[in-house]
């Protein structure tokens, strides 16, 4: 092998970079899937749970467009038969009363920070929760 020292240093850097993710997770410890706190007193979301899990942001976007651009503010009926407002604060957060214990649990896990809360108010968290941002 020519330039053995340099090649070995290069390979070491490559290996460390490639395997750093595995090492990081070993030291970082707990890797628990998020458990968003389901709202009490309700059994169904606005749409099927599968749809909500993957596409709630699409629904929110649709609602936003309908309300703000087309002025369609009529209520939506959930599978449970409850009428909900097409709204982030008064719709979603009416049932999901805690942002920290619901939305944020998943979002921290998936590293998403919806910018919605720049303007929209999050529900006031009970004293034991983290402070609402």
């Amino acid at each position, binding site marked *: *092998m*020519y330039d053995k020292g340099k090649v070995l240093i290069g390979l070491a850097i490559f*290996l460390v970079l490639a395997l750093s993710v595995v090492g*990081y997770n070993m030291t970082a410890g707990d*890797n628990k899937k998020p458990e968003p706190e389901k709202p009490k007193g309700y059994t169904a979301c606005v749409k099927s749970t599968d749809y909500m*899990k*993957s596409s709630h942001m699409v629904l929110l976007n649709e609602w936003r467009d309908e309300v703000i651009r087309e002025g369609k503010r009529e209520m939506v009926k959930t599978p449970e038969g409850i009428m909900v407002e097409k709204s982030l604060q008064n719709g979603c957060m009416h049932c999901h009363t805690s942002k920290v214990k619901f939305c944020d649990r998943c979002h921290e896990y*998936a590293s*998403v920070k919806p910018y919605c809360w720049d303007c929209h108010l999050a529900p006031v968290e009970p004293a034991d929760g983290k402070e609402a941002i």
Partner: protein
Amino acid sequence: MKVLRPIIAVIALIVAGGVLGMSQGTQMLVGVILPSIAFLVFIVGIIRKVVDWSKSPVPFKIPTTCGQAKSLSFIKEDRFDCPNSKSDVIVRMILEIFLFRSLFRNTNAGVKSGDLPKLHYGPSLWLWLFGIMFHYTFLVIVLRHLRLFTEPVLPGIGLLEYFDGFVQVGAPVLYQSDLIFMGAITALFIRRLIMPQIRYISLDTDYFPLLLIFSIGATGMLMRHYFRVDVTGIKELTMGIVTLNWTNPGTIHPIFFIHVTLVSTLMIYFPFSKLTHAAGIFFSPTRNMANDSRATRHINPWNDPNIKPHSYADYEDEFRQFMVDADIPVEKELPPAPAAEKKEEVTE
């Protein structure tokens, strides 16, 4: 057409990934086992390639020089285009790796029409532009994917996502890097198809990686913006891979498995194809050598150690008499005593 076989290969991969990703039983195979193996093949393959390269001798000093070499003090030296020292080479390599300067130097011959048509050479920067757009957005995309492989998510990834989604279009937000990436890879592919001289030299192995990477990007974007997948479920699966704690939450759309099949193919294909230029650039003698062959002697590793170097002084010592006889000027004269007359001849 050489592009046909790569198209068929990529379609076959997509179909295979889709079929295997459809049923819970085989999801584990394509979603977890295949990428794990592919990652190992990638690492071991790259290391083997590098070790193999480092065993190859470099017989001659062959840096490509693109500027004025170090010369007299009043002649301006082009340090990084004709590096003269190790540190210049390092700077040159860094510029090459991060800015692709040799592509930037690409020129194009054309005919300028006028009263008299004139041949002219101009810069041709499209390849450089699409190349650099492609590579940097690829880097951003790979780094963004770390959100699925680290828990808690590595610091800095959130910031990258924030700036990448700065325009805040749609929900989930559209990343600019995705658009640039798809645009650049499409342009690089079309370039091979429509430019006759490039198409002429393009092989299956040129089209295949382009199509493969295009499909990876396309399935990724479809997954995010069209099919919609359960990202928390996917992170459970990917975290399972990196912590060797394999799981399949079972709620994931088949498009994810197509994406993963393609990415795994890329990782396996990488060390055995032109894509290893990522490692190979460090071993390019035309880039990583200093143009200092007049100052330091480059020993050819192929040299037979039994053949000793023969300097000019030695040569003259050996043949001085013959040289003087043949009127060839010598640096060191013959010993004076027996050759008094011949000395005159030489100084004539």
